[in-house]
């Protein structure tokens, strides 16, 4: 049952930089860990680092807004809020209070289309309390579940939507884009935050059903990172999680790859003061063939300071306040976006003509050697910078485990960029970034209605 994988040293093992002269090819950073499975199917990954007396406790449930069903948009995230409201042994609304009392930090949870995570950093001598809190909400949520608390969190989540989507410039653009890309039954259509009306209609039965289906031990992975002994951690994990029952891992419904019709939509925005044009294409999911190549295309097109569109639109012609190009990767499918915020007096048609030309150039000719190298160097260095914090390492292990089934995938991930080439990048661009597959969203500042 147990698959073990122990790497040589503890903590981050690095063979880059000053310690090694520039003779040998630098090695990728490695994270030491041990992975095993409890009988009930809960995956456990231990990563030791004793430099500071802290432990990061991080649980991923392998369910996200991408697993929602029509009419229940926003539910995975609303549910995440409910997991902070209380469980049988911990008590109602005690999660944050308990953690503050033991010096906990980085306490939160997040939901995205692919997964839901919960995490906290605790002093190492209080590490067991982290396990107590996580095991209690994994197994014992329902006894304290109540209507008052659900009503309150529906309000809170709707406030979250207002604050982060409804009351900011270009918030509407995000919803309009998703609506243009995905059909009525596709789970990505209403974004992770969901529709107000779906949130309002969530019931206790929904919460219970979601919990029983998705929040089973076999559908979760626990990462413990930091200052502990492996034996001690295993004993405690067995104590708190080992007796939870074995329940089958749920089946996933994989939505069909979205093939939207080429279309153009106009959005009137009360809060935006500058026009913005977004070009969006559906593209291969995270780690799927083509995903890495599109990251390289994005760098060549939109990177601040050096991207082709930055140079022409922002710097030389000064038509744009800003440009961005990015591959936003998720499990079932991704999107590739180019957006340009137009200066007040700029000719939008000219901007769009340039964007179209520059995307077409990446289809008709490969990226340059410099552009390719620059992108690769950027990704490699980003990995190193991203490994300092304990929680970032826990998240990295979780991500690779979730998507690739192997927490030890830093090199495999970087190899995707190293092992491709300009010709393949061009092929992928030619396959996906064509005008026939393009969704265009134009956001226009709305004239404000006079105040009464």
């Amino acid at each position: 049952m147990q698959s073990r994988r122990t790497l040589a040293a503890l903590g981050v093992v690095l063979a880059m930089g000053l310690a090694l002269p520039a003779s040998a090819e630098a090695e990728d950073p490695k994270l030491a860990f041990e992975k095993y499975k409890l009988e009930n199917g809960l995956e456990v990954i231990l990563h030791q680092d004793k430099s500071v007396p802290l432990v990061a406790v991080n649980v991923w449930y392998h369910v996200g807004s991408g697993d929602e069903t029509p009419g229940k948009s926003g539910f995975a995230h609303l549910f995440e809020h409910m997991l902070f409201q209380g469980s049988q042994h911990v008590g109602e609304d005690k999660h944050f209070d308990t953690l503050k009392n033991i010096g906990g930090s980085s306490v939160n949870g997040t939901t995205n289309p692919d997964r839901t995570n919960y995490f906290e950093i605790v002093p190492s001598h209080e590490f067991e309390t982290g396990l107590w809190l996580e095991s209690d909400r994994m197994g014992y949520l329902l006894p304290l579940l109540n209507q008052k608390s659900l009503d309150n969190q529906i309000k809170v989540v709707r406030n979250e939507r207002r604050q982060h989507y409804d009351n900011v410039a270009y918030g509407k653009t995000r919803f309009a884009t998703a609506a243009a890309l995905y059909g009525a039954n596709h789970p990505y259509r209403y974004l992770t935050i969901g529709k107000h009306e779906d949130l309002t209609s969530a019931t206790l039965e929904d919460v219970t059903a979601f919990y029983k289906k998705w929040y089973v031990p076999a559908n979760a992975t626990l990462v413990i990172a930091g200052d502990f002994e492996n034996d001690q951690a295993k004993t405690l994990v067995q104590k708190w999680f080992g007796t939870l029952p074995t329940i089958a891992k749920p089946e996933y419904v994989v939505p069909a790859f979205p093939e939207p019709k080429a279309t153009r939509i106009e959005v009137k925005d009360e809060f935006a003061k500058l026009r913005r044009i977004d070009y969006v294409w559906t593209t291969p999911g995270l780690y799927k063939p083509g995903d890495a190549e599109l990251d390289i295309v994005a760098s060549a097109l939109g990177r601040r300071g050096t991207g082709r569109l930055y140079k022409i639109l922002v710097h030389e012609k000064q038509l744009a306040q800003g440009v961005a190009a990015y591959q936003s990767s998720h499990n079932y499918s991704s999107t590739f976006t180019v957006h340009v915020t137009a200066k007040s007096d700029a000719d939008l048609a000219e901007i769009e003509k340039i964007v179209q030309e520059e995307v077409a150039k990446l289809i008709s000719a490969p990226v340059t050697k410099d552009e390719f190298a620059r992108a690769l160097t950027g990704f490699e260095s980003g990995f190193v910078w991203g490994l300092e914090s304990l929680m970032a390492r826990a998240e990295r292990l979780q991500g690779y485990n979730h998507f690739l089934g192997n927490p030890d995938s830093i090199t495999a991930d970087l190899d995707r960029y190293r092992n491709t080439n300009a010709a393949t990048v061009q092929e992928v661009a030619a396959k996906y970034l064509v005008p026939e597959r393009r969704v265009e969203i134009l956001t226009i500042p709305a004239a404000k209605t006079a105040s009464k």
Partner: protein
Amino acid sequence: MMTSTMLKTSVLSLGLAALLGACPSAGNKSGVQPIGDPKAVEPGDTSGNEVSPVVFPQEEFRKTQPVPTEPRAFNLPGITRFKLGNQIDVFLAERHELPTISLELNFDGGTVSDRTGREGTASLCMSMVSEGTKKLEKLAFEEAKANIASGISSYAGAESQGISMRTLSKNFDATFGLFADTLLEPGFRDAELERMVKRSLESLKQSKGSAGSVARRVSGNIAYGERHPFGKIVTEKSLRKIKIGDCKSYHKSYVKPKGARLFVVGDMTQAQITEAFTPLLAKWKGAPKKLAKVPAPKSRKGRVFFIDIPGAAQSTISVGHMGPGRKDPSFFANQMMVGVLGGGFSSRINMNLREDKGYSYGARGSFSYNRHFGTFRASSSVRSDSTHQSLLELLTEVTLLQSGTSPAKVEELTREQNGAILGLPARFATAGQVLSMYRNLVYYDLPTTYYNDYVANFKAVTLEQVNAAATKLLHPEDSIILVVGDASVPQIFRNEENKDVPRMKADGKTQMTLLDTITELAASEKGGKGKLVILDADGNIKK
């Protein structure tokens, strides 16, 4: 020439466990009726082949919070401090686990030095510093950095500014070369400034669009006064006045080694720093221009300030006034007090506006500090129809604590103390965090041995001190209220049955709008009886 001191601050186990005595024992103490019987066994998934019932065991040990083990002694990581030539103070947080280096040269100066009519000079000119060098124009400079995945940037804050770089160790020399050129020979091309001014004008336009950014723009202006260095607002007019000569002279006046601080984090040693900087220091000398004295703040006349954003989906609200300074002798008690009120998720303000009423996604209250002053602010972004009620709730929470009607309780203080003390290692977890902890001390001119007594100081705070701080430092009746939202939205209020109901006008027929309710608030005792001032997004009084 150089002195080197290792600062090792040790925080011992300090009987931290003793503090834990007050940990709340767990268990369901809430009065809320649970659904279903806690002892019930959840039925299994009957659709599959498995027949065995799914049992979540009711084990005794789950009922109580685990007992902590002996805390591990934790030595607060120190930093190496030494001087470079030309009177630069160096603060080094040395770490070699990762091959990364970041450093910042930090200077006095910033928007406090902006001349009236040319607001935005410091900010614009310090940004200009990293927009290309004499040798490399902007795009070539960008490529040089991108080719080695290094970063160089510069900024100006209110009274502190800096030029920084970050690089992988193997690219240190190349990056440092670019950094040195940035510092000594910034390009300061006219065309580049024109680009930046144009971009800043568009950003300014954009920032007037939504409630949150409008509130950020005007809050200092209201609190400190329109002519105060911390209150001045950058406008289209002031941006257009800034010329390249202003930037050149700004750089000449304020980017000087004497008194500058060099903060270094990561894979670097004292010897390497000295070696890198020595040739540079032969070319870079002198002292910066002295900053003018910052006058006392004089808040704008009025009590309730309102900015209308038609169609806003939420309102941004705040209640605030001047507060104690960072060096106030009661600093530790002050922090505990304001933590109880609004410090985190469990604080009174958040529990009220978010967890009880559902008006907000989150609400906080805190003291913030600069070198000269402190301010108090309780704020939130709230559902539009509950704007007025949310303001009342904020004022009520401040008043309850201030008046002693609901003084801080021992469990609240314990929670805040535990959070501050036991949470300390997490604030020193990475080299970047270590450095920022010491940077703060330098900024406030506190001794670098300050953290030696940190834990003891938090521990020594008594409930009496906390409540005395509340009485002395909170002034709900004399606070400034800022509301940015849609004036026309009908308002609710919370009735005696704890329900939200429409708030009607005296005629009983029409519901009061946000503008009606805050007009009333400005004239009432609750608001501290003062004028309602309606502003535009630039902070000018609207006729």
